């Protein structure tokens, strides 16, 4: 009964991955005849000399270092804001919408909002007395724009997890803390935050794994530009293989490293979540 699933994963994941690893050692280029010879580790060395690849990996890391922490902070803030508020159920459902909308649609919506001349964002900035920003035209503003979209889309996700975790905090410990005179900020810093720490780690991991896949938003808003300022790891691999060149060998090498990084993070995640116990497969 379990066979169809195993066959599916072997055929649709393991086989393509092995094929991809093999390709990463060749110079396979679909636009050129007679390619596909074994060239050893050359593709991998090339990554280190490829300015665009490095900048794409850099931007991916920037997303992890800037956008993800902001998502965590906003998500945590939101979960405190909505805690025990009237209508929290309805509010919570509405807050989930950005995360549920297909990323391609969300990206398109933001593309309209960020428009230099006709976009509402520059209009609002103007009302506040700021100069209009050429959102997709300059390195920093384009990077900021992509981060804003990412944060918009994923803060609800963080909020959702932390909100649920907040509801599930053991009441007796909180009460004991209150009896001992902790309140407000102290209660948060010394009692609630330490209790939330494990779930914060899980959320962080889930987010980082997902940032490694970031593609749709970039494609729909900046298309990696200006130059390659907002190109992510996934997006650059797409560009060298499908969009601008057909350099499958090199793109495969980029993906092999991406998969290795992802696999390490995924492995950590499933261990922290203790999948075996969760599913009743093992006692510990």
């Amino acid at each position, binding site marked *: 009964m*379990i066979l169809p699933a195993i066959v599916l994963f072997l055929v649709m994941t393991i086989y393509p991955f092995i094929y*991809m690893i093999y390709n990463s050692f060749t110079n396979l280029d679909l636009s050129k005849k007679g390619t596909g010879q074994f060239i050893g580790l050359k593709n991998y060395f090339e990554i280190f000399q490829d300015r665009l690849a490095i900048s794409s990996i850099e931007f991916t890391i920037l997303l992890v270092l800037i956008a993800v922490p902001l998502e965590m902070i906003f998500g945590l803030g939101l979960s405190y804001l909505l805690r025990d*508020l009237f209508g929290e159920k309805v509010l919570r459902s509405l807050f989930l919408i950005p995360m549920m909308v297909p990323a391609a*649609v969300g990206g398109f919506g933001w593309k309209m909002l960020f428009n230099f001349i006709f976009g509402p964002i520059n209009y609002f900035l103007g009302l506040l007395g700021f100069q209009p920003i050429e959102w997709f035209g300059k390195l920093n503003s384009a990077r900021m724009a992509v981060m804003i979209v990412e944060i918009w889309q994923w803060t609800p996700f963080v909020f959702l997890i932390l909100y649920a975790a907040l509801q599930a905090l053991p009441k007796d410990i909180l009460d004991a803390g209150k009896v001992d005179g902790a309140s407000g900020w102290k209660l948060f810093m010394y009692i609630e935050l330490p209790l939330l720490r494990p779930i914060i780690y899980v959320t962080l991991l889930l987010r980082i794994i997902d940032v490694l896949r970031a593609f749709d938003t970039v*494609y729909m808003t900046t298309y990696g530009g200006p130059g390659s300022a907002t190109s992510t790891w996934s997006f650059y691999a797409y560009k060298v293989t499908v969009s601008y060149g057909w350099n499958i060998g090199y793109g495969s090498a980029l993906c092999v490293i991406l998969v290795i990084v992802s696999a390490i993070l*995924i492995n950590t995640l499933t261990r922290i979540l203790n999948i075996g116990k969760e*599913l009743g497969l093992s006692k510990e």
Partner: protein
Amino acid sequence: MTRKKILRIIRFLVAILVLSIFLFPIYWILITAFKQESEWFTTPPVFWPTKFTLSNFLGTGSTTFGTTTTSIAGIIPFLRNSIVVATTTSLVSTIIAAFAAYAISRTKIGGTGLAGWFISMRFLPPIASAIPLYVIFSRISVLNTWWALILPYLVPTTALSIWLLISFFNEIPQEIEEAAYIDGASRTQAFLQVVLPLSAPGLAAAAILAFIQSWGEFLLALVLTSNASAQTLPVYLGRYITGWRVAWGPLSAAGLVTMLPVIIFALITQRYLIRGLTLGAVK
């Protein structure tokens, strides 16, 4: 008491304000879909259409932008592809996942290792499948067909469904099946006629989740299909967005069509969706 009340009201108002900011992009797509052409590009932008029009959907507006983007009349094949691909993926993945999850739940086959491996399939970066699959599919002439999307979509959807369904089957007491055996049912009969009906809500949730995932998928669809005979709605959106002056009205209409079913389904299955997306970190 009054001070506490005032604080709560302030908190509520802040929450509403934040919510409006978060929903603003969605609102913008929604109203732009019903704006007439003269209100797509204006300074200041039009925040509430003077007249709601359906021309973006029906293609009865003027034709400043040429024929391809003045309406979403051309959306029908993409809509068809999306429906076929998402529905097939959802049905097939639920069936495969139900079998696997049942086996794991009852026999603990493979233990933590196998279950962990299954689940990890949900998180792999799609670009890493897209590139080798592009080469493989082009060699066996599957490229630009529904199957080119259904097959890779089965991976993350089945992975997620297996995970969801194991917990569902765990909750169904084994005694019920044993009673069926005593009545002379075979293992398959017990599964099909006793366990499956009992786990109908779980199966429905898994199917809807699979549908949502495949409906909104963008990267694989972009790489593995190339025209209206197999491209899905998100790619339709992506195709017309490059270029300086995109026709906002019709594209918003298309965006609306693309996101509406997902939002509705997602709100219905919220609880399972959340459980699935967070891998049980939220119950």
